[in-house]
């Protein structure tokens, strides 16, 4: 899993040297920003179900045709799967906040995403709408501190860009 620390170790190992001062500086930079990231991760984990539910409702409201017979949100099973997908994306965002990089989203969310949605005949616009809703819903300092919200929104933007 790619993070600042593993990248530093991989390059030090490739050169066969002990961690240098500049390696330690980069790790320290990552640690300094970690406070805000972990705060966002903690708050998101505590409210993941609500955030996912609101985002799901928002996208179904905008794309109400999905409720029509034969569409992606038509049966209870389909509805549960749609809600689960949104929750998956938010969980991966939480992982990224913990790791401090986009590794979890890249490896477990984005790789193969296009192919899967094409094979299942799913539109990506509703996902974009759901994540955009979550992106604009967060508010500092009501939900988390401003710096934490910046980190959280940046990752949602990253997920939105991968889908559009």
């Amino acid at each position, binding site marked *: 899993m790619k993070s600042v620390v593993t990248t530093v170790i991989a390059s030090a190992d490739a050169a066969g040297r002990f961690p240098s001062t500049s390696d330690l500086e980069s790790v320290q930079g990552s640690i300094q920003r970690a406070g805000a990231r972990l705060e966002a*991760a903690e708050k998101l*984990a505590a409210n993941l179900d609500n955030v996912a539910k609101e985002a799901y409702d928002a996208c179904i409201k905008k794309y109400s045709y999905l409720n029509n017979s034969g569409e992606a949100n038509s049966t209870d099973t389909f509805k549960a799967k749609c809600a689960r997908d949104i929750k998956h994306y938010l969980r991966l965002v939480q992982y990224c906040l913990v790791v401090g990089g986009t590794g979890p989203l890249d490896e477990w969310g984005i790789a193969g995403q296009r192919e899967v949605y094409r094979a299942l005949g799913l539109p990506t616009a509703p996902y974009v709408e759901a994540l955009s809703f979550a992106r604009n819903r967060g508010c500092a300092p009501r939900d988390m501190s401003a710096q934490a919200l910046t980190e959280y929104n940046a990752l949602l933007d990253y997920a939105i860009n991968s889908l559009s």
Partner: protein
Amino acid sequence: MLDAFSRAVVSADASTSTVSDISALKAFVASGNRRLDAVNAIASNASCMVSDAVAGMICENQGLIQAGGNCYPNRRMAACLRDAEIILRYVTYALLAGDASALDDRCLNGLKETYAALGVPTTSTVRAVQIMKAQAAAHIQDNPSESFAGAKLRKMGSIVVEDRCASLVAEASSYFDRVISALS
């Protein structure tokens, strides 16, 4: 390769849940500078630690440098010093990451079989690693033994806190123990 953060993520993903134990990671972040000082203490004294450990191993078993011994001639002694440095380097990586996966995947995997094939004696290797373990503890605590070091006593001079980084000493020792158990 994982670090403390990605280790938490990978184990949370196994149960499709969010990372819940954030407080452990916050503790990692809070003691981040101590960890970097500890890594720096080992990295800055690495060549001294390696040569001392190998010299100590040979002092206790002079047969190693007699004809037919595993540290004779110079070519094999050089290989021994190089290997000790490699092991110490991967332990340092593990200490920096707060996770043993770099050490396990890149150093220990297959090491025992390689040494068995090359005829490297396990007991001597383990002894050198044990000496490095004691040295690493002394350097992280910044408390090297005056009676052993004599005129060569060297301190990092960084600010030392009350418990002398006891948790980091324990963590570093656990990585050395990992090497020892992988070899024996």
